[in-house]
């Protein structure tokens, strides 16, 4: 489903964040991405959602070449993806509920089922009681869970999680991993970038390891 061929990414300041990466993730697969701070994990994930464009190489998702996507087609690609951003990107002038509502508004979901979906997503991450709060009143871990709820509310085909458990304690991290696994079991392709050794220890999923922009399998 997701195929990288000879992909490199050089940022405008000259720094090469990814160097000739070849990669293939099958549809419905769950993959971990690990590596040092600054190894290029976030860059790789951003390339999938066309948030950054590769300097060279080809990225195909379901046969579509992302590198050559017209700007008008990008929104429709992104709607297939649920992205948990490393820096959260919450909107601090809306309630918790409205933050999770956003992805549904964007893709014109049916108004009658929307509220139920938002609540279901909040329930899964244990934030249902806080639906009327503003994000500023959430603890660090609660914010991270809010991001997760927002990424899964529209049931995307691909789930990309960039450091989803950095602010969570072991129990919550286990719950969140279980949530990801359950998504994966119903066919969602899941990519998780993480440093958390405890997540990687007892997993039977594939682990990709980046080292200074190169994939070391």
């Amino acid at each position, binding site marked *: 489903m997701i195929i990288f061929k000879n992909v490199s990414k050089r940022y405008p300041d000259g720094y090469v964040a990814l160097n000739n990466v070849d990669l293939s993730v099958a549809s419905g697969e769950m993959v971990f991405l690990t590596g040092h701070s600054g190894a290029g994990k976030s860059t790789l994930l951003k390339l999938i*959602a066309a948030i950054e464009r590769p300097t060279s190489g080809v990225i195909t998702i379901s046969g579509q070449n992302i590198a050559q996507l017209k700007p008008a087609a990008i*929104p429709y690609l*992104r709607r297939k*993806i649920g992205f948990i951003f490393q820096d959260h*990107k919450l909107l*601090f002038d809306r309630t918790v509920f409205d933050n999770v509502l956003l*992805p549904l508004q*964007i893709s014109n979901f049916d108004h009658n089922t929307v509220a139920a979906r938002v609540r279901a997503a909040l329930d899964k991450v244990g934030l249902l009681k806080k639906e009327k709060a503003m994000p500023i009143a959430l603890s660090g871990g609660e914010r991270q869970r809010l991001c997760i709820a*927002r990424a899964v509310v529209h049931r995307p085909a691909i789930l990309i999680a960039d450091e989803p458990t950095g602010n969570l304690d072991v129990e919550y991290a286990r719950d969140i991993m279980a949530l990801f696994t359950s998504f994966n079991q119903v066919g969602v392709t899941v990519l998780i970038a993480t440093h958390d050794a405890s997540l990687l220890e007892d997993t039977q999923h594939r682990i990709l390891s980046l080292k200074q922009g190169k994939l070391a399998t």
Partner: protein
Amino acid sequence: MMRAWLTQHGFVFFLTLRRLIATPLTSLLSIIVMGIALSLPAGIYVLMQNLQAFSGQMADSPQMSLFLKLDTTQDSIEKVNQRLEENPQILSVRFIPKDAALQQLQQSSGLTDIAASLGRNPLPDAFVIHTQENTADALEQLRLTLQKWPEIEHVQFDSAWIERLNALLDLGRFAVLMLATLLSVAIIAIMFNTIRLQILTKRDEIELSKLIGATDSFIQRPFLYFGALQGLAGGATAWLIMVLAIRTFNEQLITLSQLYAIDLQLQPLTMMDSISLLLFSGWLGWLGARISVASHLWQIEPK
């Protein structure tokens, strides 16, 4: 489909309204700024409209003075008046009795009581007419015809006088034009900048929406509503300022009207003018929002 569209837009509309209310100081200040900025060119427009109605015929069509013989009777004057008004070449007829002419002389020169000093009024009665044609030939023709009337001593058309008045009016027009240009640049810049700065504070929202797959038009929509609503509110404020200003000004004019015994009153904004004002201000707000959002969207595009 239609219903979904309506719900979507209705939702955005109310979201925008709620936001305007949520930041009352920012909204109010911006609306006042836009209102004042808009009321100035609107005021100039009203003044120009009124001036034009007042001075239009005077300045634009050529004018001729007919001096009557000194001994003309009231009867003959009436007859001349009637014949002038029936003439299709003549647009307007204004009678200037000798007393009025003397009074005007006194007013304009600062010399008072000339009649008293002279013992009697030396000026003749006169007519001032405006003609339809303004070619030299046609005017000369008319002059010759009128000269032949027995009551008329002398017909004069003076282009120098008109030139002077025109120079004065030109100056006025120039001043108004200069001011209007300046103000137009100003309101566009002010509304544009106000809405742009307000949107700058929403950078996060634009960026996130883009990242989770919102189309450009979806992202722009609330901001366009916001800009248009703010612009409309600014236009309404300008309209209110205009109405109040015209009313206050007319009250002042009453004194002047009484002194000069003429009817000087500014005409209020017409329905059409009011609607144009609102539409224009809404459009300006919309434009300011559009340009700001578009520039943000462009920055977030992957390269």
